């Protein structure tokens, strides 16, 4: 066998080994320094925010998010999945944290969702903004995209436009920004579960595990109280 053929075989084998290792590690749950559920700084009752899920839910998941942030978009399906798995036990409390220095359209997006909320469609717009993030986030003027989404939700267009320019809604978003800063939120998305800051979960499994451990802790605490 010539040396060139040997070299080619080694190259092909090496690519196959690297590929196999990459596939293996990409399927592993993350157990490194960012172990989900590791207790972090705690969050006191922030006030404000929008709620999704029953008021008497056992676990409250607080999210500080930015509609233009790709990570927030990536985590959005995980949040929805967690809410759908525990419809009675988990409640989402969402706070705006538009990072306007790097996401030029994020403030307008927060206003769009608040404006939709004025017509009772906050969560519908919240979901649509994440789903269509690629379309509006690159636009120099995202307003027509937001209006098109508002039309899909059958919102009153004039009221929506007026609300987007409302100082009260701007104040509401800015108050959330202050809350984020007071909670030492350094990046988006940042999640708190029952007031405890979470490292970003790498998968829905890790997310659900963390929520389940909180539900389990609550159940144990209730059992001990009843004894």
């Amino acid at each position, binding site marked *: 066998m010539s040396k060139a053929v040997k*070299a080619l075989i*080694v*190259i092909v084998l*090496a*690519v196959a080994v690297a590929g196999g*290792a990459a596939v293996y*590690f990409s399927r592993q749950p993350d157990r490194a320094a960012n172990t989900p559920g590791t207790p972090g700084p705690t969050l006191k009752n922030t006030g404000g925010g929008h709620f999704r899920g029953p008021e008497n839910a056992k676990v409250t998941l607080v999210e500080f998010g930015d509609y233009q*942030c*790709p990570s927030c978009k990536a985590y959005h399906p995980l949040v929805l999945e967690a809410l759908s798995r525990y419809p009675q036990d988990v409640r989402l409390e969402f706070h705006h944290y538009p990072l306007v220095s790097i996401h030029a359209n994020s403030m307008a997006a927060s206003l769009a969702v608040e404006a939709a909320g004025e017509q009772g469609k906050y969560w519908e717009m919240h979901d649509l903004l994440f789903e269509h993030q690629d379309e509006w986030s690159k636009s120099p003027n995202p307003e027509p995209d937001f209006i098109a989404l508002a039309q899909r939700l059958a919102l009153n267009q004039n009221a929506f436009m007026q609300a987007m320019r409302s100082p009260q809604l701007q104040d509401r978003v800015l108050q959330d920004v202050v809350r984020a800063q007071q909670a030492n939120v350094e990046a988006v998305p940042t999640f708190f579960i029952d007031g405890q800051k979470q490292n970003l979960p*790498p998968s829905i499994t890790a997310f659900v595990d963390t929520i389940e451990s909180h539900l389990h802790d609550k159940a144990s605490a209730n059992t001990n109280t009843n004894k």
Partner: protein
Amino acid sequence: MSKRALAIALLSFVGMFDALYLSIKRNAGPIPCHVTRGCTDVLTSRYSELMGIPLSVFGLVFYVFVFSLAIFEILGAGKILNRLFWPATAGLAISAILVGIQAFALKAYCEYCLLSAILVLSIFLLSPRPWAHKHPQ
């Protein structure tokens, strides 16, 4: 066996793994960071692809090329490692631009991308300088 070629082969093997891992993870939901914060932001940003092709795929092609040169050298199938310098220089320039984009445009860092930048820098430093092989008349 040249220790330099062996070191370059090892570095490029790690690079192949890194690039393959990113190519797989990129379309599989959130990409968690361990050291930095913002892997998903970086890897899903508009700078993360060129003509619809993820940059990690270009990285993979680069590392396979470097690995091939090193293996040919190690197995004595060809003295071609001295052709590495200019591709490594180009790789280093591109890596520097990408690190700059992370620092100034995205303000988020991806540890896998930073690892790749370190690997490219190491490969560049180890690559034989073409002028070193020119013998005086």
